[in-house]
């Protein structure tokens, strides 16, 4: 039914375009047009399609919750819990589809009939109201074009409006992220004190078994379960290991590319190194778990060291490889944009190339390099799959790179993989972790971008 309405609207809008254009050509025979005939067509088509479509979309969004409200209003006085009402409503819906297999009660049957009834009314009134709006708005637009009013300007304003709405998509996404994270996080902190989360030393989400919806929530059940210190420590520790690999290799290869490399080497080596950034992270994760982890373990055995097969070192090291191109490309760009006269001045004083680089170019490019490193750190903190696959999932509080640790991202995956139950502290904990991840990376990005921007302005 919905797709039929949608298609009808689209078809009517399309045909009204041709109709409007034809009308314009008719008008043209005795009057001067205000715009090209096609704008008459656009004008009519927009008035035909847009209001009807808007109403149709709003209706489709709000219909389910309105029907739900009417059905459940019969039971609102009985003091039922939210969870029970939800359960009841799901039963009503499945009964109305004849898929219900549980115990039948008179209430349930009555509500299911009412539900079907409401859906029917809603369906037909939707068809009637949407179509009558379509006819009314098209009629309005038709009288307008018959009077030969301006059509190009309204059409362009409409298009501009659509463009503007599209540009809001980025803001809406940000709002959506903040809304979804914040909402769940606040609920989480109503059960688990913020202090316990930020300063607690034990993280065992497995202990918080999923609770039945009808059971009351007992905060004492979760004491000493959601202490995020080991997670935060693990995240920064693995990011640190990654940067230990990525900064020297990335920075040195960036410098070499910018200052020494021949044109040919630059032409070939640069894109090849950038392939490293294009490889999906799940592939790195597999590589770390299959090759690097066992390799480090064997190496450790031959040196008499106890190395876990899922060590922070394996995950961090492979993550570092992934980050190399971010740092090398950005620092290459930054170094290339250092003005030539700084170099010339240094050479004129008799400095060798490496001395110039170390004493003149790097200090001059430092803000940009720091910015690129910060962006790399933010990548490392937000990286998920490598850690999930290569560094184990138990949250150990350790500074030994040979043991396994876990990160914010890995714990989010651990908690949310499989079926989730909304409204459960365990699920909400993942959102709280997500919010902390979002904040940390946001701050890093803002700092990094503003540093790089300031640097660019300096030399432009």
């Amino acid at each position: 039914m919905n797709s039929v309405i949608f298609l009808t609207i689209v078809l009517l809008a399309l045909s009204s375009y041709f109709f409007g254009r034809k009308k314009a050509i008719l008008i043209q025979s005795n009057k001067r047009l205000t715009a090209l005939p096609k704008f008459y067509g656009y004008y009519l088509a927009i008035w035909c399609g847009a209001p009807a479509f808007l109403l149709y979309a709003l209706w489709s969004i709000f219909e389910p919750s309105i029907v739900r409200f009417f059905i459940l209003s019969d039971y609102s006085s009985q003091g039922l819990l939210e969870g029970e009402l939800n359960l009841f409503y799901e039963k009503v819906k499945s009964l109305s589809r004849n898929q219900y297999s549980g115990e039948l009660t008179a209430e349930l049957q009555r509500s299911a009939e009412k539900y079907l009834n409401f859906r029917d009314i809603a369906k037909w009134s939707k068809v009637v109201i949407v179509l009558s709006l379509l006819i009314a708005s098209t009629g309005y637009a038709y009288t307008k074009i018959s009077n030969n009013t301006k059509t190009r300007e309204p059409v362009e304003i409409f298009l501009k409006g659509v463009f503007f709405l599209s540009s809001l998509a980025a803001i809406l996404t940000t709002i959506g992220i903040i809304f979804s994270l914040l909402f769940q996080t606040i609920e989480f902190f109503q059960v688990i004190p913020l202090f316990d989360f930020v300063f607690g030393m034990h993280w065992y989400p497995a202990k918080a078994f999923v609770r039945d919806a009808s059971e009351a929530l007992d905060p004492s059940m979760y004491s000493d379960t959601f202490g995020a210190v080991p997670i935060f420590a693990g995240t920064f520790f693995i990011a640190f290991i990654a940067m230990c690999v990525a900064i020297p290799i990335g920075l040195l290869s960036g410098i070499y590319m910018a200052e020494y490399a021949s044109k040919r080497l630059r032409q070939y080596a640069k894109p090849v190194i950038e392939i490293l950034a294009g490889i999906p992270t799940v592939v790195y994760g597999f590589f770390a778990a299959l090759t690097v982890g066992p390799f480090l373990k064997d190496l450790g055995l031959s040196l008499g060291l106890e190395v876990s097969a899922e060590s922070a070192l394996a995950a961090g090291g492979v993550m570092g490889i992934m980050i190399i191109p971010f740092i090398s490309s950005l620092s290459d760009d930054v170094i290339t944009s250092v003005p030539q006269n700084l170099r010339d001045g240094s050479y004129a004083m008799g400095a060798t190339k490496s001395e110039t680089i170390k004493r003149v170019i790097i200090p001059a490019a430092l803000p940009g390099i720091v910015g690129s490193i910060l962006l790399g750190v933010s990548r490392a903190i937000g990286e998920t799959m490598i850690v999930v696959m290569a560094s184990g999932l138990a949250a150990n509080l350790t500074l030994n790179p040979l043991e396994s640790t876990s990160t914010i991202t890995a714990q989010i995956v651990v908690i949310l993989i499989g079926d989730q139950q909304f409204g459960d502290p365990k699920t909400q904990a993942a959102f709280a972790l997500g919010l902390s991840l979002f904040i940390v990376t946001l701050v890093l990005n803002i700092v990094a971008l503003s540093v790089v921007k300031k640097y660019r302005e300096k030399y432009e």
Partner: protein
Amino acid sequence: MNKEERLIKRYKAEKRFQFYGKAAIFMALLFLVVFLTKIFSTGYTAFQKTWLVIPVNYNADLLYLDPDKKPTTEDINDADFYEFGIETFITLDPDASEDQIMELKKMFAFTFERELKYYLLDNPDSFGKTVDVKLTASDDLDQVFKGNYPRDIPENRRRASDYQLKIFDKLNEDGRVISEFNASFFTNADSREAELAGIASSFMGSLFSILVCLSIAFPVALLAAVYLEEFAPKNRFTDFIEVNINNLAAVPSIVFGLLGLGVLLAVFGLPRSTPLVGGITLSLMTLPTIIIAARASLKAVPPSIREAALAMGASRMQTTMHHTVPLALPGTLSGTIIGLAQALGETAPLILIGMVAFVNTIPGTPMDPAASLPVQIYIWAESAERGFVEKVSACIMVLLFFLIFMNLGAQLIRHKFEKKWN
């Protein structure tokens, strides 16, 4: 230290520094080479499949069918091919004990019933005769044949028993073990059995997700970029939008997964585990990438083009739609393809919206539950069976092939169609 020595020292430092730079580039390239060789060397065997060709006697008595009448399709469909299969396997070693019969059975994939049945359905003439039939070898023997399993370790640490290996070697000597291109890897859906698992379902899942992602992200991003470059007044609000886009581009992908879970699934109630939700989530993620690319190529269109159009009496909107946007389209498209390639390789957000479910059917629409190629890699990588290791590597090869293909396509569009203005 005199002047001369100091100079030598400085030159040595110069050489050293250059060496460090070269070493760093060499290391980065080495990682790439090691990485790719490892994936290819473990993965290429997955494109071969091992078959056991065994003599099968389609005897009417064994199938409980009437020997004098040619069986119809229905008769064959109703016949019990399990018992028939067991009887056939016993012919490989007539002296086999009870336990050994079970081991014989385990030399074949559990689909042997179906394979025996389809052979008879396809070749009704073989009824009552003894013919050679090609059956899928079990994962263990497949791996032994490909040399991925060591044979010289004690029996209790091996998956394939001594007895199975003895029979297998005998078959091999008779030329009854053959290796062919593994078409089922591309046509089968996921399976718990490594020898039967294929990428068809996850491939379709990826395809649908990318199509949904493209159909949302491309138009919205293009229009947003046009607004910001061509129409937006320079004020605080548009600055705010810009900052937003730049920050979104750097938000970790898993946060988009949380967004998909918390908004698309929980608030809008869209169906879980489907490419539709996956595609919407990915489109939000690729949106900033495409907007940034589109804005860059709109910026690259010289102002003289716009001025010329305006001077000819075109309105701002006409100038934009007829001149600026078409000229900026190649750059936008190549940016879009790069964004989609990123989305194609993304795993974490899809895991959160439930696209990790075990799906053994091939999805037909974006509303059916599915996995995607990277998620398939994750699922298989977490499986313990050795047979899945080569499958993972092969799946990675397929994924990398598509990524390379897309990136080359983006380059091609950029070089072929983009206008250079100087």
